[in-house]
């Protein structure tokens, strides 16, 4: 096991998959000469040349569509959005072309394309640069959504996403790029899509989450531990496909659930998971499922306001106490 940053893990995944398959190429703004706005593609231009690591114009709709066309013709594009906040400009090509093409052609055109970049908030980037965008992609059948929270997950899942034959929205986190963690050395280290990971074993309450919120969940679990409460912390890792078995397992164990997510509540991921749990494990619930989310407002710039807008370990603890009726 090597210790590396989330950024390096993504970089390795890209590099290894590009080595492995000449049809894989990376395109996006600043990915080549600038090594990526967040340096995720550092060194790849040198290694693979400017036909496989390509700086695009600021034309999100255009280069996302270019990727879809290239995938139709047999390549395996990795399209980087500098952040998913800018992908609103491209979402027509993701939903109307990428996610629907395989169906509209009755299987004639698989769509092995990855759209990747950070989602959610970093620090004080204000409303137009801080949105968590999962819902816009998970809602549509035909599009897979992957949200790694650790370096190992980032590497294993990106490699799986690149090898997958469906379009994948691969959502990273600006605040995760510098995070360090252990990553298996194996060149073929793959984490299959759709397998959740129980990141902490408890038994009193289930904190279910995805993406960078896994770290907030673990902090909350530590605080709860001090009060003698042991929390299961389940990291979904991919929200479509969804590891429902793992969800039901922890629910049936603890009978109490808090869903934690970075984004807004209305029709968010937590709403979906909550609706499914109450449907499929109704008799196992000893309390309503609570959701901890971003405050239901556009993200403000001011440091203090941003801090309270984001989900916090304390709010998770409070929610856990509520479902435990403490």
């Amino acid at each position: 096991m090597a210790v590396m940053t989330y950024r390096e893990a993504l970089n390795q995944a890209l590099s290894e998959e590009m080595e492995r398959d000449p049809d894989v190429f990376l395109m996006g703004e600043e990915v080549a000469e600038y090594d990526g706005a967040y340096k995720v593609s550092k060194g790849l231009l040198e290694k693979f040349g400017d036909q496989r690591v390509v700086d695009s114009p600021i034309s999100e709709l255009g280069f996302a569509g270019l990727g879809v066309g290239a995938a139709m013709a047999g390549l395996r594009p990795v399209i980087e959005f500098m952040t998913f906040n800018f992908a609103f400009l491209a979402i027509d090509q993701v939903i109307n072309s990428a996610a629907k093409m395989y169906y509209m052609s009755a299987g004639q055109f698989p769509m092995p394309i990855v759209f990747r970049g950070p989602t959610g908030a970093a620090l004080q980037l204000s409303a137009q640069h801080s949105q968590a965008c999962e819902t816009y992609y998970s809602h549509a059948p035909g599009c897979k959504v992957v949200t790694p929270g650790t370096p190992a997950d980032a590497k294993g899942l990106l490699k799986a996403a690149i090898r997958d034959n469906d379009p994948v929205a691969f959502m990273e986190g600006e605040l995760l790029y510098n995070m360090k963690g252990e990553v298996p050395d194996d060149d073929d280290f793959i984490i299959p899509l759709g397998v959740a990971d129980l990141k902490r074993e408890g038994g009193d309450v289930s904190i279910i989450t995805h993406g960078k919120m896994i770290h907030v969940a673990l902090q909350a679990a530590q605080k709860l531990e001090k009060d003698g409460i042991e929390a299961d912390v389940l990291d979904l890792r991919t929200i479509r496909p969804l590891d429902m078995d793992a969800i039901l397992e922890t629910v049936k164990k603890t009978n109490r659930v808090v869903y934690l997510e970075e984004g807004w509540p209305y029709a968010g991921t937590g709403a979906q998971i909550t609706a499914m749990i109450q449907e499929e494990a109704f008799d196992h619930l000893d309390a309503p499922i609570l959701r901890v989310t971003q405050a239901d407002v556009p993200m403000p710039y001011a440091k203090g306001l941003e801090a309270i807008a984001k989900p916090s370990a304390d709010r998770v603890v409070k929610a856990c106490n509520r479902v435990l009726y403490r």
Partner: protein
Amino acid sequence: MAETKTRKKKSSGAKNGGALEKHGIGEELALDLLRDMLLYRRFEEKAEEAYAIGKIGGFCHLHIGQEAGAAGCIRPLREDDYVITAYREHTQAIAKGVDANAVMAELYGRVDGPSRGKGGSMHIYGADVRFMGGHGIVGGQVPLAAGIAWKIKYKEEDGVVVCFMGDAAVNQGGFHEALNMAAIWKLPAIFVVENNHYGMGTAFSRVSATPVAERAISYGIESCSVNGQDVLETYAAFRDMAEEVRNGGGPRFVDLQTYRFRGHSMSDPVSGTYRSTDEVEERKKKDDPISILRDTLFDAGLLDQAGLEEMDAEARRIASEAADFADASAHPDPEELFHHVWAEENHGRLFFDGRDR
């Protein structure tokens, strides 16, 4: 198609006789182009009938009047070249090699359609013959074409992609983003605006301060205007352009001047406030690509009425055969509803509609 005028025949004899030579088009090829267009015409007339009796539903956009934009643009291409287009694509699918029976079956929503009835009129695909669809979002196919051209360049092939769009599509931002990328990366793509002068009920002149042909200047892409009602001129232009693009000439932009003889879709009126009945009748008389080629061949003595009728009968035969084939094809089974959503199953759940309910 409009009736021939004897006077016209005489007077234009010489000029027309020269048309084939002028464009370097042989007799057999010229006759084939007429066969193509007759088939497209009869095929879509059949589709009209079928729509009228409810065999075809949804939106159905006919190419009638614009057939030279299928025959003339696509016949000069190689099998390994790509074609991508919008929703007015029945004839272009056939031109690229999708079986007419299959196309009709798709319109009928049956399993023998290329998309097994799931795509319908706007979404005909032929992966095997490199017909890349069939797209319903105006302008949506243009960035896809850039991606197909990207693949050709990436794989160092010598193919080209021809991307069709309507005149209204040039007002979509994606069109501009795609043309800019095609220009900076010198992609082997020919972007063709089938300029029938209207987007639904909106004359192009009302939504653009400049003619279509000028819309690529900003990218330094070589442009030309082609008479899309003259299939010989169209064929020659695309034959030559394809060669140049194939040999690294970079992208091209074509203002293919044409005219739509029918309403925007089956549910829209042929004429109305946006264009007069007279205008339409005038154009049908003067500018029918089939009549124009027919007259040329008559005048050049390469075809006579009997030969034409024979050809036409054959076109009608294929068209009604297609309709019979489609009608005989099975409706998709209910469980097909859930096929082809995902190319790859993974661990975990991919569907969320609770099948049991």
